[in-house]
């Protein structure tokens, strides 16, 4: 360890020996997508959209995924509900909420990196809860089911409270994401890390603003479109400014999931996405940022 300078470079040969972020993704986690794709096949729009982000993820050749996620009162509950938490374990199982057509996976993780991120986050002023013995719900597993179904890449989940008000502010989530980015870039192992944010921009699930005849609905499609447009332009400051508590309420009872995307954004260092493809009937999008 003594061989590493303050910026994590090996003083002897200048080789970078710390982890680096090699790309980022934004994805949805809709629980009925696995059954839908099983039914409709690889040519349906959802299968193709997930295939597009999976191609980008594979090209990043990541050794580790760090995923900002909102649990749906399955990992946590109303008796114990952290605003932010880091999953620190060698592996975890999921889904724990029985989405159709999804097997129970065992997902490997990196407790050493997770503990480092948590320690660095706390030192940076973020009160990150520790969760060591846990399972995860569809929100973590559905994107992985499509993107890394062999579960060969370790995943560190960072949980952001996005459903049960009061929610953390958009700025706070962005700042958390910046602290996580710095922590990753300070980990003394040359890991290639992809950062993922998951969830919807506008969605109501089982609440009063669902669509007639459905279990969900998009209460504020204009906001979902606006969020996509701001992301496409790289206008992240504007996105943070416009993601107000009132806008989050208008967006639907799970619209706070956009906070996971906002926490992912510091990892892209101001770059514009390679693509952001909306799927407006669900109020969400698929996006990829690549640079190396």
């Amino acid at each position, binding site marked *: 360890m003594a061989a590493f300078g303050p910026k994590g470079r090996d003083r002897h040969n200048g080789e970078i020996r710390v982890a680096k972020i090699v790309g980022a993704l934004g994805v949805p986690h809709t629980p009925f997508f696995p059954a839908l794709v099983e039914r409709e096949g690889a040519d349906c729009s959802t299968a193709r959209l997930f295939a597009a982000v999976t191609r980008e993820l594979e090209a990043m050749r990541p050794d580790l995924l760090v995923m900002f996620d909102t649990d*749906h*009162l*399955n990992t946590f*509950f*109303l*008796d114990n509900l952290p605003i932010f938490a880091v999953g620190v374990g060698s592996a975890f199982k999921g889904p724990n*909420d*029985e989405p159709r057509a999804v097997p129970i996976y065992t997902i490997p993780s990196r407790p050493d990196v997770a503990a480092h991120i948590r320690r660095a986050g706390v030192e940076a002023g973020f009160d990150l809860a520790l969760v060591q013995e846990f399972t995860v719900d569809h929100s973590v597993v559905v994107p992985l089911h499509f993107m890394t179904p062999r579960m060969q890449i370790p995943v560190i989940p960072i949980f952001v409270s996005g*459903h*049960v008000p009061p929610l953390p502010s958009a700025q706070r989530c962005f700042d958390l994401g910046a602290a996580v980015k710095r922590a990753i870039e300070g980990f003394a192992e040359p890991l290639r890390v992809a950062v993922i944010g998951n969830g919807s921009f506008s969605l109501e*699930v*089982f*609440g*009063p*603003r*669902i669509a*007639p*005849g*459905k*279990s969900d609905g998009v*209460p*504020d499609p204009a906001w979902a479109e606006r969020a996509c447009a701001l992301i496409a332009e790289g206008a992240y400051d504007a996105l943070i400014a416009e993601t107000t508590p*009132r806008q989050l*309420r*208008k967006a639907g*009872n*799970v619209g706070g999931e956009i906070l996971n995307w906002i926490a992912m954004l510091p990892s892209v260092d101001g770059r514009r996405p390679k693509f952001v493809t909306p799927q407006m009937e669900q109020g969400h999008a698929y996006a990829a940022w690549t640079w190396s």
Partner: protein
Amino acid sequence: MSTYAVNYLCRELLRDHAFRAAMKADPAGALARHDLTEEERTALLAGDVAKLYRLGVNAFLMGYLPRFEVCGLTMPLYNERIRTCAAEAEREAGA
């Protein structure tokens, strides 16, 4: 906070398959051991999800009631009933 008990048993429908079966077979009996107000118990047994929403129960968790078809609820019936709160939900959201 009393609505906690309703929120809790909604999630128990997902987690505890024996409770799920009991709620399908004999909801009043299955709810007897839960510490509910009479208002909550009556609304639950009637599948009155609009009433429960107005009492402050979490709507996402109430979705387990029609998902597992307990308290006489099906998805179409749930949809019809919860949407009677749409106007007030829009107002509360400032939409």
